[in-house]
């Protein structure tokens, strides 16, 4: 299992009710159902992925989370998961507000634009970075709103969003992030996972 999925799985208690926004082919949902006996729903944009989910017996609806989250009532899920998709929305703030409305907790993972390889790419080579977690080039990337772990940390502060936990991933190694080590971790984490409420 992807290390990110392992971290997310550790954040979720057994039998929780979760919504996976942008659930892809449903692999995270499926492993959470097997391991944690959770009640899972998903929403996914790509028709092909939706069909894969349906064939796995997953309850996934084809739809665009950008404008179709209204249908979920307030606090109807224990956890809402948004895995590396926030940066692809036109209006990430609006999406995030919906997620916080729908879920008691929200797990957001972001590819960290403050990762050192990203910084050096721009600094030394003068080119938009292409890395493992940012595999696209500038002209075909779906990512509209890139941010760093530090950006998202400060965004949560500005918007009075409570940060319960931050976990950084660097090359299969995971570490806890807090206010004190934020600068360092912002440099050395490829992906940041936030548990917010």
């Amino acid at each position, binding site marked *: 299992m992807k290390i990110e999925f392992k971290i997310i799985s550790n954040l979720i208690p057994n039998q929780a009710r979760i919504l996976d926004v942008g659930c892809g082919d449903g692999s995270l949902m499926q492993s959470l159902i097997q391991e944690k006996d959770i009640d899972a729903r998903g929403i996914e944009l790509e*028709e092909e992925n*939706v*069909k894969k989910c349906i064939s*796995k017996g997953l309850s996934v609806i084809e739809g665009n989370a950008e404008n179709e989250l209204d*249908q979920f009532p307030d606090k109807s899920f224990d956890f809402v998961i948004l895995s590396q998709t926030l940066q692809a929305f036109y209006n990430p703030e609006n999406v995030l507000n919906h997620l916080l409305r729908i879920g008691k907790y929200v797990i957001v993972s972001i590819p960290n634009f403050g990762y050192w390889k990203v910084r050096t790419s721009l600094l030394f080579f003068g080119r938009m970075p292409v890395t493992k977690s940012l595999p696209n080039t500038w002209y075909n990337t779906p990512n509209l709103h890139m941010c760093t772990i530090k950006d998202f940390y400060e965004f949560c502060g500005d918007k009075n969003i409570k940060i319960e936990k931050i976990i950084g991933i660097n090359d299969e190694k995971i570490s806890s992030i807090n206010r004190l080590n934020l600068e360092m971790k912002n440099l050395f984490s490829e992906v940041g996972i936030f548990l917010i409420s």
Partner: protein
Amino acid sequence: MDYTLKDIKHIIIKKPLLLDSGKTLQDFPLAYETYGKLNESKNNAILVFHALTGDQFVTNTNPITKKEGWWSTAVGPGKAIDTNKYFVICANVLGGCMGSLGPKSINKETNKPYGLNFPFITIKDMVVAQESLLDHLGIKKLLSVLGGSMGGMQLLQFCTLYPEKSFSAVPIACTASHNAQQIALNELARQAIMADPQWKNGNYYDEQKFPKNGLAVARMAGHITYMSDSGLQERFGRKLHEKQNIEFSFDPDFQIESYLRHQGNVFVERFDANSYLYISRALDYFDLSKQFKNGLTEAFKNNKTRFLVISFSSDWLYPTKNSKEIVIALNASGANVAFAEIKTDKGHDAFLVDEPEFLKTIKSFLDSNFELFKNENRI
């Protein structure tokens, strides 16, 4: 098309059925057909609801019309709804003309066909009648219910009336409430039938002269709504019918014209005009949200059924937005729902024709739900 009731599998519903229209029906026949075998655990049963002009003969050769069953593309051994694995049940709707009580049945009070003395029926009445069939077959809980178009509407009604009776449900290309355009198209069809001098206020059974022309026009109009603009263009375009040049006549010059006439002509051989009137009226009266104080969301409250809602991208009769309304209501009530819009140019008819992506989706859904249902039974 002649047959007697004894040629057709049916039950007699003895329990009085109080119709939405206020009348009561009692001791009436409901015709049905089954395919495959019910297994020992009785957990492989699937109830299929048919559409406006369908009947209980889902697959194989229809013994009355000698034509292939209306859902032969999806139902049969080794097919998406695999009858080697599943026990498939389908009943002819109340008001129909394939053995169930309908306007052409003999009214016991007058010893004549009902005609327009047949009581008005609703989708709910149809569903209540069909539920009796499950008792008769000894099925406590179905693996799934499936239905396209009017079949989907019956399914939604079934799942709200009997939320415990099916483990999963697949409403296809349907709506929770008939809208103005859908009512308008049905009214066009009905007026075509009633404008036929042979219709005679529905009293045409004695003379054996049926309002064929009117019913054929109704079918032609219906058929246009089942296909998409691009589907029609690709299949027919401006192609001429068995000729090199246009002939400046009102005979069918274009292939699309002869196709529609053919559809109209074969239809009148198998369908009763009064049934068309009554069933299309039942569709127009269908508004599931009005049955609940707080609308559609309340309809599915605490419903544990696992839904798969399917729509077709080029369906303009029951377009994707109708299906999405159902999905939104299901999500708002916390129900278990999956939704897929199948990309196709085959229009509303896509659920009846060989549309591989659609068939693959329902197959994988049924197969995975069968496993889940078996596990549920074990616990």
